[in-house]
């Protein structure tokens, strides 16, 4: 008979309820502010549903009516420098944070709506209606509300998508030496998604001041909590990660407030993350002005029972009990809130001249359609004044150096010069510079800024995104292999890539993502892609792909200085190259829009990047082609050197785009498309391309070679161009 000993986690897990005594000793000003916020939020969201019913809200309007107690109770005492982010259902948290920011001394119930508050209500409503005066210029709408100054980091339409970025924000708060904290709000439906669980783990491992606030409203759209999890007490998650957790009645704003006070004390004192689970109930369906019972997944009786626990009534009742307000006073708070919404609505709507008795958006308030692409990325003006050096044109003395050492050296140089730079990734702090030596020496020099991460790409990519949005630090994230971008795809493409534009175009996302193409290394189908094509066709990202060590220095310096997310692609074949850098100079940049012509010629234009540049040179030599070889260096739509490409194509009238990887996700597809549209009348033949095979490279050496392009495939490509040139040669 084996011996069995019961194990317990060391994490606290408590249920917190208020007593009559708690209500009696609660600060009257706190209660008044909570009552005022609850009514303002309620009136606001009722108005949103009214407008939705009139067909004036484009897209879904996820109301939190019924759930306001969780938001108000947890936010009412936060600082402006504390931060929140949330989910698709985030009006209440956004408004609570904004109201706390503009009314830092609390609300006066007899003069509830100040000018600042009126502005908050109107700007928030305008954003939900998609109007130019909204917080995000109408881009974000109901699901992407951001007001940085108020500490509202941005709500998120991807379930669980905000957790990694909240964790990143908390890392910045901690690293900066503050006692500020961050709350990430999400619902019961997100409590078992990977991003959230990865973030909980990362925050616990690194003791970051972030609260994972679960609004358990029992339904993920129509799927009831019992159908989704075995233990419906979702705060149980803390037990798995060593995070202290509170379970609290979210319909009792004071209980939420008290729980948050305890949790904040943990977070502000360096105790790491916390979890608060608030049981709440949305009175309406997932979105729109109808109750959930209308859709048959719950009963009217259940809804009536929860409505009996309305947090607005609860606070009013307790305040009346203490003589802090009377019924007429409560009615006045309600009336002031509704009047404020009438005023906000009147600013945004007018009678529709075409439809009797209907209203419409005032036409002049819509954003200018010309604004559609503004802010997909920055304009690069941050590079102005930086020292540009073109290595291929410089006669400065050289220093022999392996390519991979240049990778580590330039990062070491920048980290020494710029304390904002933080490097994070898997095993980058060990193994003498990670799996390839690309971070050699960094951890020894800057142990607090070189972060070996758990294997959770979504969490640490999103943590980098949170750092970038916060702006105090410059994250450099490493993906050990490019294919891992699929694991972290939400954070890479939905969050980091879109954040600037989606939230209005102003708040930059300066982040560098390093990864290495490893075709030829035998790592097989799931490790050997070239990510350039996928990033080039996704919004927001800039891309560099250096073919020499000296270029790497200048391109990485530019990437680190840019206010945009930049993918830096490296290649294992280049790492071992005996290359050279400019002696004593690791500080220049190679700006966007500067390709390098590696060879001049008139017969055809060969366009390539990264390790394939060398294969192209070999192939040109073998074939004797008088080819012009362009090394792109900058690959994305905004940074591509069109002038060089156009001048070359106008000279040669023939194009061969060369890359190594698989056809499907290849880079050359979009470039060929651009070239044929921009330069159609200059082309004497189709844009020709060299790529790998359709398949991903296999582990078998022979099959891997067959799946990728090297010099032999470029030779074949050159011959194809020649055949298409016709004539007798």
């Amino acid at each position, binding site marked *: 008979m084996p011996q069995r000993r019961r194990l317990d986690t060391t994490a606290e897990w408590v249920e917190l309820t208020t007593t009559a005594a708690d209500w009696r000793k609660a600060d009257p000003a706190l209660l008044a502010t909570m009552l005022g916020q609850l009514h303002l939020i309620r009136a606001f969201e009722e108005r949103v549903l009214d407008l939705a019913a009139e067909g004036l809200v484009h897209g879904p309007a996820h109301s939190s009516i019924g759930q306001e107690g969780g938001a108000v109770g947890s936010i009412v005492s936060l600082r402006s420098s504390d931060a929140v982010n949330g989910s698709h259902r985030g009006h209440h948290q956004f408004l609570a944070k904004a109201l706390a920011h503009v009314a830092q001394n609390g609300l006066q119930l007899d003069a509830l709506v100040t000018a600042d508050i009126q502005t908050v209500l109107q700007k928030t409503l305008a954003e939900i209606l998609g109007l130019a005066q909204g917080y995000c210029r109408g881009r974000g709408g109901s699901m992407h509300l951001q007001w940085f100054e108020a500490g509202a980091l941005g709500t998120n339409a991807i379930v669980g998508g905000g957790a990694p970025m909240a964790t990143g924000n908390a890392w910045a708060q901690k690293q900066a030496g503050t006692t500020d904290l961050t709350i990430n709000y999400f619902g019961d439906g997100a409590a078992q998604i990977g991003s959230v669980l990865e973030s909980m783990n990362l925050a616990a491992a690194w003791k970051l001041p972030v609260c994972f606030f679960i609004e358990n409203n029992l339904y993920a759209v129509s799927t009831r909590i019992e159908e989704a999890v075995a233990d419906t007490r979702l705060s149980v998650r803390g037990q798995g990660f060593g995070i202290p957790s509170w379970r609290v009645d979210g319909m009792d704003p004071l209980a939420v407030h008290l729980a948050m006070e305890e949790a904040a004390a943990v977070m502000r004192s360096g105790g790491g993350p916390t979890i608060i689970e608030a049981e709440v109930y949305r009175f309406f369906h997932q979105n729109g002005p109808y109750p959930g019972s209308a859709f048959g997944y719950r009963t009217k009786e259940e809804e009536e029972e929860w409505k009996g626990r309305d947090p607005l009534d609860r606070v009013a009742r307790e305040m009346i009990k203490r003589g802090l307000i009377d019924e007429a006073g409560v009615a006045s708070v309600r009336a002031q809130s509704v009047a404020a919404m009438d005023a906000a609505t009147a600013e945004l709507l007018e009678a529709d001249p075409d439809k009797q008795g209907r209203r419409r958006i005032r036409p002049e308030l819509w954003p200018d359609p010309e604004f559609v692409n503004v802010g997909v990325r920055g304009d690069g003006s941050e590079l102005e004044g930086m020292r540009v050096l073109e290595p291929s044109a410089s006669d400065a003395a050289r220093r022999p150096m392996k390519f991979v050492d240049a990778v580590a050296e330039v990062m070491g140089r920048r980290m020494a010069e710029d304390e904002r730079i933080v490097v994070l990734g898997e095993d980058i702090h060990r193994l003498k510079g990670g799996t390839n030596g690309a971070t050699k020496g960094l951890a020894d020099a800057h142990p607090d800024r070189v972060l070996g991460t758990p294997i959770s790409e979504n969490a640490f990519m999103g943590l980098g995104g949170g750092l970038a949005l916060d702006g105090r630090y410059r994250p450099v994230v490493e993906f050990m292999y490019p294919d891992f971008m699929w694991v972290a795809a939400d954070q890479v493409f939905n969050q980091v890539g879109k954040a600037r534009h989606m939230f209005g175009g102003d708040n930059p996302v300066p982040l560098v993502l390093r990864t290495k193409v490893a075709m030829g290394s035998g790592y097989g189908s799931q490790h050997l892609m070239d990510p350039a094509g996928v990033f080039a066709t996704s919004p927001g990202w800039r891309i560099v792909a250096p073919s020499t060590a000296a270029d790497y220095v200048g391109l990485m310096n530019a990437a680190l200085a840019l206010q945009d997310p930049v993918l830096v692609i490296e290649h294992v074949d280049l790492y071992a190259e005996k290359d050279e850098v400019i002696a004593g100079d690791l500080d220049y940049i190679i700006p966007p829009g500067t390709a390098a012509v590696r060879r001049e010629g008139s017969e055809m234009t060969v366009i390539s990047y990264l390790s394939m540049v060398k294969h192209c040179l070999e192939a040109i030599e073998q074939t004797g082609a008088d080819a012009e070889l362009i090394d792109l260096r900058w690959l994305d739509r905004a940074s591509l050197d069109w002038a060089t490409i156009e001048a070359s194509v106008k000279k040669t*009238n023939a194009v061969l785009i060369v890359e190594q990887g698989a056809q499907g996700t290849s880079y050359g597809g979009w470039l060929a498309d651009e070239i044929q549209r921009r330069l*159609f009348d200059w082309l*004497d*033949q189709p844009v020709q391309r060299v790529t790998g095979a359709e398949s991903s490279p296999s582990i078998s050496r022979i099959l891997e070679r067959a799946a990728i392009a090297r010099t032999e495939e470029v030779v074949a490509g050159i011959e194809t161009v020649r*055949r298409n*040139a*016709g*004539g*007798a040669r």
Partner: protein
Amino acid sequence: MSTTIRMPEVLANVTEAAVQKWLVAPGDEVAVGQPFAEIETEKAVVEFAAETAGTVLELLVGEGDSIDVGAPIAIVGEAGEVALPADPAAAPAAEGSGGVAAAAPSDPESGAPVLEAAAPVADAAAAAQTSAGPVEATTGAGGASAPGEGSGRRFVSPLVRRLAREHGIDLSTVTGSGPDGRIVRRDIQALLDGSAPAATPAVAATPAPAADAPAAAAPARPAQPAPEGATVVPHSRMRATIARRLTESKSSVPHFYLTADCRVDALLEMRAQLNAGGQVKVSVNDLVVKAVAGAFVDVPEANRTWSDEGMVIHDSVDIGIAVSLDDGLVVPVVRGVEGLSVSALGGRIAELAGRGREGRLKLDELEGGSFTVSNLGMFGTQSFSAIINPPHAGILAVGAASARPVVVDGALEVGQVMTVTLSADHRAWDGALAARWLAAFVARIEHPLSILA
């Protein structure tokens, strides 16, 4: 009985002409052979003599009006006779029923008139201007095959399509060597080389018929509106002709080029002596033309020109002289140069050039010949190559004589040197023949007494 006088075909293949000036008036009596009108064609203004005696009853066209060759221009009859209407068969087609439809192109399949409304105006205008065959009918109705293409679509690379449009190249005669017969750049490279836009301003600035630069004036469609600040001046008939003929020449005659430096100290000395005595001044150009004739005497087999029917062997040396006009040029032909003295030749050239500048050359003075001389030496041009003036077999481009270092018996000295460039039609001349002819020319120039002999 009155006689209808019709617009004469004053030059072969000229389809329209204008009365520049009437030399008679209604009521005038005219005799056969009496100058009747000055007729302006693309090429020249020629005098048209009356072929019928009688009284001029009516002039049917105004001065300067361009009409088709063969159309009535005047009626001559007996005094007092009433002019009958001109031959109705020659009446403008628009007067006949259905004339418009008959004149309009029709779709080969449906027979319906082709509606050009869908085509860009510029393209339609260009199509009308293009005298050659179907220029890659990209704007044709519904993208149907161009006439003569057979059932298959002609494949043309985008680059070639654009270049053909810009240079007025007829792709229907080009065979494609790209995949599936696609016409690619290489297939029209030669045509492009001959007509590529050059920086040289225009033919008008030179006296040569053939300064190697006329393509900018080629009959390409005006694909682009004039740039801001520029204006478009309609082409004169002469300008259009220069453009058409030189484009045809450069793109259809296989030119090849030989260059020689001639030591001309002796030539210049001889000219000085000639001019010191005689009343007639002899120009260097007169001596050059005479030397050209001498070279043909020395190498008589070179005096031949290409025609599709066969090689034309000439029995006299007839040489075209390029004469510049204010805006254009003409090439009158001096016949029998080998038999003329230098002074007679000089006088003849001066006389022809003078009338050429006045637009008063006769038709037969512009036709024939086997060779052209174009001299830009008086402008200081050192050397150039010229475009052959069909049907001539060659053209000699003559530069300025200037003092240059020369090596004589291994020693450097200063000599007067003139560079000439021969453009030859490879269909008529081979390289060796051209070289022999050029050597004969140089020998004559460098031993100038042989020019006089």
